């Protein structure tokens, strides 16, 4: 089954990259331009009629968002993951809410958590999990949650933190060698 799916996808999308393949599991990476075609093809001709999940990974160092659509062939319990990269700046991804009623909620969440826009989703922008969020979208890699939490919510008492490694090193004068390499420089 998976062989057939793979073959058909490869014929249609020659630039497709295979990520993982198992007897009921296939993960492929496609070009941005052919992502929607691949999804539609999977739904209409390959039998992956169910949308399980839309997931996003913030690949900050590559400056892209990787969007993964997880589709399922309901009768065969077979999973197809289709991933594609979208540039991070003003990221816009086509909406699937016309094809699957479930897509709308996933897309609303991604809009809230990553700031990715899905034009075509009629309910885009409605509050989903957060209420009146003004900071960087929280699931982005450049959002520091601990810093935010300490700034906004505070903590009861600050930690009395003594790192044993540093504490011992200071007692015995580990860094007090003739060359005196500073710990800060090391780190």
């Amino acid at each position, binding site marked *: 089954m998976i062989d057939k799916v793979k073959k058909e996808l490869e014929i249609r999308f020659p630039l497709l990259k295979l990520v993982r393949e198992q007897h009921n599991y296939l993960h492929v990476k496609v070009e941005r331009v052919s992502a929607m075609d691949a999804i539609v093809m999977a739904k209409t001709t390959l039998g992956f009629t169910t949308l399980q999940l839309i997931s996003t990974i913030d690949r900050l160092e590559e400056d892209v968002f990787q969007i993964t659509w997880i589709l399922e062939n309901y009768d065969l*319990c077979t999973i197809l993951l289709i991933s594609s990269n979208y540039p991070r700046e003003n990221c816009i991804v086509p909406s699937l809410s016309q094809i*699957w*009623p479930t897509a*709308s909620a996933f897309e609303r969440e991604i809009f809230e958590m990553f700031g990715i826009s899905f034009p075509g989703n009629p309910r885009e922008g409605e509050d989903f*999990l957060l209420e009146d969020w003004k900071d960087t979208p929280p699931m982005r890699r450049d959002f520091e949650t601990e810093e935010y939490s300490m700034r906004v919510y505070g903590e009861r008492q600050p930690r009395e933190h003594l790192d044993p490694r540093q504490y011992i090193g200071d007692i015995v004068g580990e860094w007090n060698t003739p060359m005196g390499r500073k710990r800060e420089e090391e780190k």
Partner: protein
Amino acid sequence: MGVNPATDPKKTTHLFFGPQHPGVTGNMSIEMWFDGDQITKAITHVGYLHRGFEKLMEKRLWIQNFPLVCRICVPEPDINEECYALAIEELTGIEVPERAKWIRTLVLELARFAVNLMAFGGQAGTLGLGTAAMWGITFRDFVLDLFEELTGARIYHIYIQPGGVRRDLPPGFENRIEEVLTKIEERLPELDRLVLNNAIFKLRTQNVGVVKPEWIKEYGLVGPVARGSGSVRDVRKDAPYEIYNKLDFDVVTETGNDIYARALVRRREIDLSISLIRQILSGMPEGPVATKLPNLTEWRVPAGEYYSRVESSRGEYGYYVVSDGSLKPRRVHVRGPSYVHAVPLLERMLVGANIADVSNIMVSLTTCPPEIER
């Protein structure tokens, strides 16, 4: 929370159901518009339990996430641990000892058993049948005692870990399970009389909250919601994990499409769990229960992506785990069955329903808000 202070110019009534409402499952709310007592439009509001699990998991070591993932689903934490552990095992190639697989399956079935007891009783509870709800929760408590003995906690077990489980079964544990099973089994017929053979329950649930079979594929419905409408979908059977392929069972399915059918599925799942637990206890092999892991604070999971699936009491549960080869996960996306059940499906099901049935319908989907919000 009472009527919205802003007066609506149209003749429809506008009501909030929840989050502070005894009939709501967990902490969520539904905003509804009525024509008479018939709902014309419904919007689910979630996020009251949003803790940013997925963000926190990116900030913690692989092993440190086990205490975190179990908190995503309070009634049935083990599926989260199992699902996350399965993904890690797939990415790292860690082998699970045979006995650990059996113990894991035992734990998962016990948890499913406990949850179905509570959900089955809870379904009656929403109709005012408090006794059934109390019985269900009390039965569940007997199972929690077993969990306490096995794992050291009633609710958050943190028992399943990559490469096995954290502790071996305590001596004589099998007998205690058998005692509890017998005790509950004896009393289940009473519960049946109280719920399934109850005129009130039948009147309030039959032909109410219908899930049409054609919605199943459209929405990707799973678990008792789908199986109450004729689906035979069960990950335990279709893509077996752990030792489910060695156990003998048939997928529970009903064709009533309504709340009663879903309650019946849960009731039959309880029997199935009892049978599975007995099978597991009779076949439990000896051996080690955990594979040795490397230094936990320096443990790097090889780069890769995997979507792991298990069957929870509410249906298929998925974890999309992405590693970039570092000490911490790059991304963990939790896909609970309630996501589609409680948001798109519930919004659609409620249209045309009566105000009195809202809570009933919601509970029949066993929506678990933390799964949606994480």
